[in-house]
């Protein structure tokens, strides 16, 4: 699975963009989006998903269940 950003919750603060180890996050249409093809859920990089940890609004960066779980 990859992470996704709930657009209605996103404040466009850009904090996640700089923290993502995979450069998977970019601005699109006023909010930020995660490229599921690049997202590794931070496995192998950090103990916790960086976007989730830095996001100022709870439940904004969430697991996208429509993708299979990431395999390191």
């Amino acid at each position, binding site marked *: 699975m990859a992470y996704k950003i709930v657009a209605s919750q996103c404040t466009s603060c850009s904090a996640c963009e700089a923290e993502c180890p995979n450069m998977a996050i970019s601005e699109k249409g006023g909010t930020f989006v995660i490229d599921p093809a690049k997202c590794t859920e931070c496995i192998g990089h950090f103990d916790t*998903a960086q976007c989730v940890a830095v996001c100022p609004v709870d439940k904004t960066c969430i697991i996208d269940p429509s993708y299979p779980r990431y395999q390191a």
Partner: protein
Amino acid sequence: MESLTHQAGADGVDMDAIMQQMAEHKGCGTSGGSGKSSCGSSAGPSDMPAEIWEKVKNHPCYSEEAHHHFARMHVAVAPACNIQCNYCNRKYDCANESRPGVVSERLTPEQAAKKVVAVAATIPQMTVLGIAGPGDPLANPAKTFKTFELIAKTAPDIKLCLSTNGLALPEHIDTISKYNIDHVTITINMVDPEVGAKIYPWIFWDHKRIEGVEAARILSENQLRGLEMLTERGILCKVNSVMIPGVNDQHLVEVNKAVKSRGAFLHNIMPLISAPEHGTVFGLTGQRGPTAQELKALQDACEGEMNMMRHCRQCRADAVGLLGEDRSAEFTTDKIMDMEVNYDLESRKAYQAAVEQERVAKVEAKNEEMAALAGEESDVKVLVAVATKGNGLINEHFGHAKEFQIYELSTSGSKFVGHRRVDMYCQGGFGEEDTLGTVIRAINDCHAVFVAKIGGCPKNDLIKAGIEPVDEFAHEFIEKSAISWFKAYLEKVKSGEVSHVARGDAEIRQGALIAE
């Protein structure tokens, strides 16, 4: 991964429910980016070393005297933040709101540089450029320093400053020094992590979200080390503290000692802004802000230790103009891109020289009046409110005043002690309330209000409320007039014509501004 839940509030408050309310909060109806900012001293040249006066005399946020004459602007180039504060909700965004944490649009460093030059060309009193968010400038180092670099090239006479929570300050100290940043403000609300845990739910540090006392400990260590490093490099540092009654109000005396001993030049204790409609944790838990007299008592208690700033307007991270005014709507990105800009350094210098002359005249007028007060002995101390548009003059109509400046008068002279916002605010979505009542509650601790002009009705209501409306000093210097009025007041008290009665407390206004 979803285990980033929050501790239960100290009073058994359901923090999850509050966090969800915060997340759902949409502000009061406008859209755009999101936002934060912060911002002097009532001291003049006589109470500070000459080299410091040189640095602050044209800085509205560092000198109370300067804020009558000089303007500042903030550019919102730094949206990301590395900590969460219980008085901030990043989802809140309202064009009518005037307080830290709010902006209308975010800028790229290039747009910001263009905006600074456009504003400076239009407003010659614009001498200071600050980056204060809307997140934390040092959580966006590339954008922040790129902006400073561009501005230093195109507008070399503008002073640069930044306002930070201090978490990332030690690691960026050399860059701050390299870019000739004149002034740094650190927001320090505690030096005791136990207190900090009640203010900061988490920090983002070393790729981890850290909560509770540990988070506050790391934050506090970095803030104090950062302050020491600034002092070592000779960079002027102001400390901002938010006064949160029952949480850190008493503790701020300790904070004051800690920051003074580490070389902070100025301490700015600001009242908590907290209303349910802001969607902040403190707003939703009903945490109140201080009253005007509670704030003043704490500022007075710290004043023996160091200079206290009392003129902070807690402005937006994209504010433009004199403190207390906001001209940001004249300088939106669309408008700036269309502007023909002629940056004329000479005319800016000429304006600033004229201000210098005005200042000298104002100080001379005050000193003359003080001579008349010499030899008077009395324990009487009163507060007076002044309606002013700037330049140290009583030059605003009572009914047009968006704020009043407050001066304390005693036989030792006049002292600026604060300001009170009285503009119309929306109260949780409901319309304006009784306007005159609002004004009276905001200056209820004052004995008199000085105005350029006032109508008959409000005059009578003020007198009924025990506040003397004074319009005989219209368009004269504030301090000279106030001292002259005070001298006459003392004489009336002495002769028994009036009996001196202490005034009550006053309200600090909260809530969003109503759109024009």
